[in-house]
C-alpha cells in the first residue's frame, strides 16, 4: 500500500476542451491550470452543465484535450487506464456479472489468477460490509450498495488516482452521508489522490482538502478554497461555525456565477 503513497500527482496546464466543429462547436473547458498533490482530496464544484464532468472525462482519458497538457505523475494522459479509477454516477456495474465478478474484473484484465482474484474481491467486499452479497446481481442491490460495489471494483486495483463524477447524487441523504464517511475512511487507508466532482457545497467541504470552484461554460477556475478543517471528520462538523463560514464563502462565489452571463470565448 505504501509503495504508491508518493504517486498520484495530477497536473493540468492550459487545458481546453471543445466538442463538435463549426457552428455547433461548444467549448467545455477553457485554460484550466491545476496541480493536485499525491494523496490530496480535491473537489470540483460548479454550476450544473458547466463542464465539471468534462474534467473527469479528460483525466480518465475518454475525452480528447483540444489544447494544453494533462499529466498524471510523469505520464501524459492519452487513453483510459487502470491506475486512474473512475466511479460514475450510477448504473455502471456490469448487470450480467455478480457482485464478486464485477469486483474481480480489473484483476482479470491484469491476468491475476482465478483464486487470487476471488480472494481479493472477497476481502475488499467484506471490509465494505458486502460479504453476504458476493453472488448477487447488481439489480438485486440498493443504490447505495451498488455504489459501494463500484468503489470496491475500482479500489481493488489499487489506483493512484480515483476520479469520481457525482457518485452519490442519486442516493438519499442518509445513505449519502454514510457513503461520504466510508469514502473518507477508504481514502485514509488507501492513500490515493481523489478528484471529486459535485454540485453540493456541503459534500465538497465535508470531504475535501481543497475545493476548486468553476465558472459557467466554458468552465475556467474561478477560485480555489483550501479547507483546513481537522480530520478525521464526522457529521457534527456540518454545523460548526468554521464549516458554515467556508460554506458562505463558496456559496457567494457560486451565486455570483449563476447570475453572471456566460462569457463568449
Amino acid at each position, binding site marked *: 500500500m505504501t509503495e504508491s503513497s508518493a504517486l498520484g500527482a495530477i497536473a493540468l496546464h492550459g487545458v481546453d476542451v471543445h466538442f463538435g466543429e463549426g457552428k455547433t462547436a461548444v467549448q467545455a473547458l477553457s485554460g484550466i491550470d491545476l496541480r493536485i498533490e499525491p494523496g490530496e482530496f480535491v473537489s470540483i464544484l460548479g454550476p450544473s452543465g458547466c463542464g465539471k464532468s468534462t474534467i473527469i472525462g479528460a483525466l480518465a482519458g475518454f475525452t480528447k484535450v483540444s489544447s494544453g497538457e494533462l499529466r498524471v505523475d510523469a505520464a501524459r494522459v492519452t487513453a483510459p487506464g487502470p491506475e486512474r479509477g473512475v466511479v460514475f454516477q450510477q448504473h455502471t456495474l456490469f448487470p450480467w456479472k455478480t457482485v464478486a465478478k464485477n469486483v474481480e*474484473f480489473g484483476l482479470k484484465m491484469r491476468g491475476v489468477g482465478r483464486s487470487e482474484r476471488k480472494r481479493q474481491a472477497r476481502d475488499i467486499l467484506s471490509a465494505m460490509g458486502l460479504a453476504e452479497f458476493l453472488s448477487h446481481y447488481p*439489480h438485486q442491490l440498493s443504490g447505495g450498495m451498488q455504489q459501494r460495489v463500484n468503489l470496491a471494483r475500482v479500489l481493488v486495483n489499487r489506483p493512484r488516482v480515483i476520479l469520481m463524477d457525482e457518485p452519490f447524487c442519486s442516493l438519499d441523504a442518509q445513505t449519502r452521508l454514510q457513503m461520504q464517511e466510508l469514502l473518507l475512511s477508504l481514502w485514509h487507508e488507501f492513500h490515493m489522490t481523489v478528484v471529486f466532482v459535485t454540485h453540493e457545497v456541503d459534500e465538497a467541504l465535508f470531504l475535501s482538502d481543497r475545493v476548486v470552484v468553476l465558472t459557467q461554460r466554458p468552465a475556467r477556475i474561478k477560485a480555489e478554497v483550501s479547507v483546513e478543517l481537522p480530520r478525521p471528520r464526522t457529521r457534527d462538523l456540518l454545523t460548526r461555525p468554521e464549516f458554515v463560514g467556508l460554506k458562505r464563502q463558496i456559496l457567494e462565489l457560486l451565486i455570483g456565477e449563476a447570475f453572471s452571463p456566460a462569457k463568449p470565448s
Partner: protein
Amino acid sequence: MASAVQGAVAPRSNAAALSADEAALSISASHGASARLSVRIRSGFIGALSIALWLCCWQLASVHKWNFFFRFENIPAPSEVAAAFGELYRAPKFAAHVGNSLRRIFLGFSLAAGLAVVLGLLIGRFRIAAQSLFPPLEILRPIPAVAWIPLAILLFASAEQSMVFITFIGAFFPILLSTIHGVEGVDRRLVYASLTLGAGPLDVFHEVILPGALPSIVTGLSIGMGTSWFSLVTAEMISGQFGIGYYTWEAYTLQQYPKIVLGMITIGLLGMGSSLLIKWIGRRFMPWFKPDASAA
C-alpha cells in the same frame, strides 16, 4: 482495513432495512396468494369455457353444413379431427414428416443464427463493417423469404437444399437486425467502465458488447424461429417431399380434410415449442436478466 470496518456498520443497517422490506413484501404476498389463486382459477375457467364454446360452434357448423358466406360443407368437424389425431399412432409416416421438418428447421435456423449473430456483432461494432456489409443486406431484407422459393429451386441441386435455404432466409434477417440493435444499445458507460478497469479491445468485445447485446440477440432468435417455421411450411407446400407443410398440402390434394387441421395444429405446436425452447435457453444463459429491472 481497520478503518473501513467502521464504514461497514452502515451497510449492515442497510441490509437489515432491505430484508425488513422483503419481509413486508412476502407477508403481503402470502396474504394475497389465495386471492390470486382464485382469480387464476376463475380466469382459467372462463378461458376454457370460451374455447369449448368456439369448438361447439365449429362442430355445429360442420355437422349442419353451414353455407352462408363461409362454406363449411368440406370443413372437418372437431370430432373428425380428434378421430384423425387418434389414428396417428398407426401412421409411421407422420413421424417422418415431423422429423424432416425439424431437421430442416434445425439446419436452416442454426446456419442463420451463426451467420447473423457474427455479422450483426461486426456491423454493430465496426463502422467499416457497417459501411461494406450492411447496404447489400438492406436491399435483400424487404424480400420475403417465400419470394425466394423459385430462385432457390434454381440455385440448389436438390429440393432439400433449397428448403433449408428458405428456412435460413426466414430466420436470418430478424436475428441480424436484433443483434445490430443490441450491440448499438450497449450502454457506453459500461464500455468506459471496462476501459478504465484495464480492458483491451478484445476484452471489451466479449466482456461487455456480447453480454450487453445478448437479451436483444435472444429476442431476435425467438422471432427468427417463428419466421423460419413460416417460411419452411410454405416451401414444403410448394416444393416438398415429406415435411409437415407437405403433409398438410397433401391432405388437401388427397381430400383427407381432417388431416389438414391436424397438420395446422402440429405446425402451431412445433412453432410454439421451438420458440419456448429458445426462450428457455436464453433464460439459462442470462440469469441476471430481468426485463423490467432497467425501468426500475
